[in-house]
């Protein structure tokens, strides 16, 4: 059930943006891809739009498998996750430990105007679903102060990790920021990954 005390989504993401380390890959999509660039810009950020709904978690999983020396953080909406709940099983089955899924749960298809998801009026236990799929670390937060206080520790729990944040809808002005074009992002991401791979391969 939604309440007026749900975590403001921009502040929820600001906590993550402030905690991101330089060599971490961050994948956002849908609403989060419009908010994140206003908070922080890094060459290892990939704002996956235009995306295919439910594609962000598998794409991040591919990056995590390809770059096991690096942490990968993916921010997904609840509508996207509902389209492919099996992706939670795929993540665990793959054996990755360097992946964190952050679910922004507002019960809505936000970018299409705020229609309810099928889960909006029920109490779907997403963190419980992740635990049942085999995630060793699965937590949820409904309070911004608690999220702020515990986020750093949560991101160091055994991976793969699943974090459900019960959030409010985004203020319209937060969804209007400019995002680099897909071509620019792909070029930047590839360059950053290849440069750093070269460095890591040549290190003694």
């Amino acid at each position, binding site marked *: 059930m939604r309440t007026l005390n749900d975590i403001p989504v921009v502040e929820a993401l600001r906590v993550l943006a402030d905690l991101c380390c330089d060599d971490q890959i961050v994948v956002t999509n849908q609403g989060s891809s419009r908010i994140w660039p206003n908070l922080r810009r890094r060459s290892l950020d*990939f704002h996956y739009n*235009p*995306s*295919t709904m*439910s*594609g*962000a978690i*598998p*794409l*991040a*999983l*591919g*990056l*995590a*498998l*390809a*770059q096991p020396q690096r942490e990968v953080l993916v921010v997904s909406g609840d509508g996207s996750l509902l389209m*492919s709940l*099996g*992706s939670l*099983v*795929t993540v665990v*089955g*793959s054996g990755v430990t360097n992946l964190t899924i952050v679910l922004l749960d507002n019960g809505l298809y936000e970018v299409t105007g705020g229609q309810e998801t099928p889960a909006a009026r029920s109490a779907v236990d997403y963190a419980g679903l992740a635990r049942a799929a085999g995630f060793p670390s699965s937590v949820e937060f409904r309070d911004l102060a608690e999220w702020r206080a515990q986020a750093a520790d949560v991101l160091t729990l055994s991976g793969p990790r699943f974090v459900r944040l019960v959030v409010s809808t985004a203020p319209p002005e937060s969804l209007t920021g400019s995002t680099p074009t*897909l071509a620019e992002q*792909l070029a930047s*991401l*590839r360059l950053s*990954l*290849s440069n750093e*791979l070269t460095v890591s391969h040549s290190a003694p």
Partner: protein
Amino acid sequence: MFTGPEIESVFAELGITHVVWIPDTSIGPWEASLAGSSRLRLIRVCREGEAWPLAAGLHLGGQTPLVLMQTTGLFESGDALRNVLFDLKLPIYSLIGVRNWLVPQSRDTAKTFAEPILGAWGLNCQWIADPADKPKLAEHYRRCRAAGIPGVALMAEGAP
């Protein structure tokens, strides 16, 4: 068509690092060879729509994935394919088993719509329709890689 050891050898010699799949009855017998390979890794997805973005992430991360599924999965995963191959413009190669292609009397729509749909997408396709065609898989893969484009090998299958 291919045995498990044959297909593992072809994939490995092409430099494929990850095979992202959902098996069918023709592809399924390759599991032991692909899962047991020391030269590539088999990644199992729950739904074909996961396979394309997962392969995209692998590709962006510097690996060389191949997507392997049946035509039914190709149809199911159309939007994911569209996004990865056309929005992201990633040259992901796939091997698609065409169910019932080798059964002339079959009216299986999984066979009927395979070519028209791939044709509508304008994807570069290569049929592997009988054992004599097997070398064409590697040849086509190398041509697509050299051109930096996605490609699809269509492998004729019998009845499930």
